[in-house]
């Protein structure tokens, strides 16, 4: 059942320049960054992936493009998951925001912006959510120094 649905999706969802495979009973779609919004829209409209689970990123330091943005969706009617991946370069780490499709994406995109510096074009509120105003850098990037702290109050002598 799962396999049949995933095979159908694999055939119909694959955009230009994309890849698809099945890993641990999850369909993994890899698309160019400009196709992310359209892929998510089709997942929601045509395949009933109504639950946005998470967006995060992977920092492949030393590779180009450097960052990989990873989305997870879940279908509460089919009970299957799909993983959507895209690669963005370090110089211009921009993807389209999915807030217009899934309201829940707003906070998760803010967190991903905090931690990796991915810019979600169209997110109306990209203020820090877990970090604080004035924090320099993005702490989950691999080139953030492991021991670097940015205290808000002066330490005692």
């Amino acid at each position: 059942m799962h396999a049949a649905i995933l095979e159908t999706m694999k055939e119909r969802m694959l955009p230009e320049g994309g890849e698809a495979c099945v890993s641990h009973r999850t369909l993994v779609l890899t698309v160019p960054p400009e196709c992310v919004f359209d892929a998510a829209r089709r997942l929601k409209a045509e395949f009933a992936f109504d639950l946005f689970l998470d967006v995060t990123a992977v920092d492949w330091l030393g590779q180009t493009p450097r960052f990989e943005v990873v989305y997870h969706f879940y279908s509460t009617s089919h009970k299957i998951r799909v993983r959507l991946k895209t690669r963005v370069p370090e110089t211009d780490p921009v993807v389209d925001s999915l807030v217009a499709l899934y309201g829940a994406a707003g906070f998760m995109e803010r967190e991903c912006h905090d931690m990796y510096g991915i810019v979600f074009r169209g997110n109306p509120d990209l203020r820090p959510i877990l970090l604080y105003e004035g924090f320099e850098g993005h702490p989950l990037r691999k080139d953030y120094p492991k021991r670097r702290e940015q205290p808000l109050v002066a330490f005692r002598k």
Partner: protein
Amino acid sequence: MDRAPIPIRPVNSRHPAFEYFSTKKDELVGWARKFSLFPYPFVTACCAMEFMAVSSTPYDTDRFGAALPRFSPRQSDLLMVVGTITHKQAPVLLKVYEQMCEPKWVMAFGACATSGGFYQNYAAVAGIDKIIPVDIYVPGCPPRPETVIDAIMKLQDRIARAHHPIVTETF
């Protein structure tokens, strides 16, 4: 045959020997203060479970007069910092400490409050003594309730032995 009535109460109950006693001011104030520690639980993380265990019936810090949590820093004497303090939270902790009235004491409860524990990264403060002075440290991840009770008793001993100025230069 008449018998004299047995005197139930002392002949003179207002004998001066029962009306006055002498002590030292520091001992008296210290004795009073050490059994009326009102804690302010600044609880941020998993050590809270152990804090609840040590406050509730089986271990019962009320035996030491240190069980009535005051959820206003202005009414409390003992700031119990229970759990990890992040850099984002440090200004809040400092403000709570500054709002407490003298005399006040601070307990660093657990490994994270003591030294940052295993968090050595961008987020966590490596020990609350970088921000506020600490009187007693409780090790453990989380500490056993016996360790906390031991810390309270050691703090009480220190309070009992301390000098307690009633009037200071600033007040």
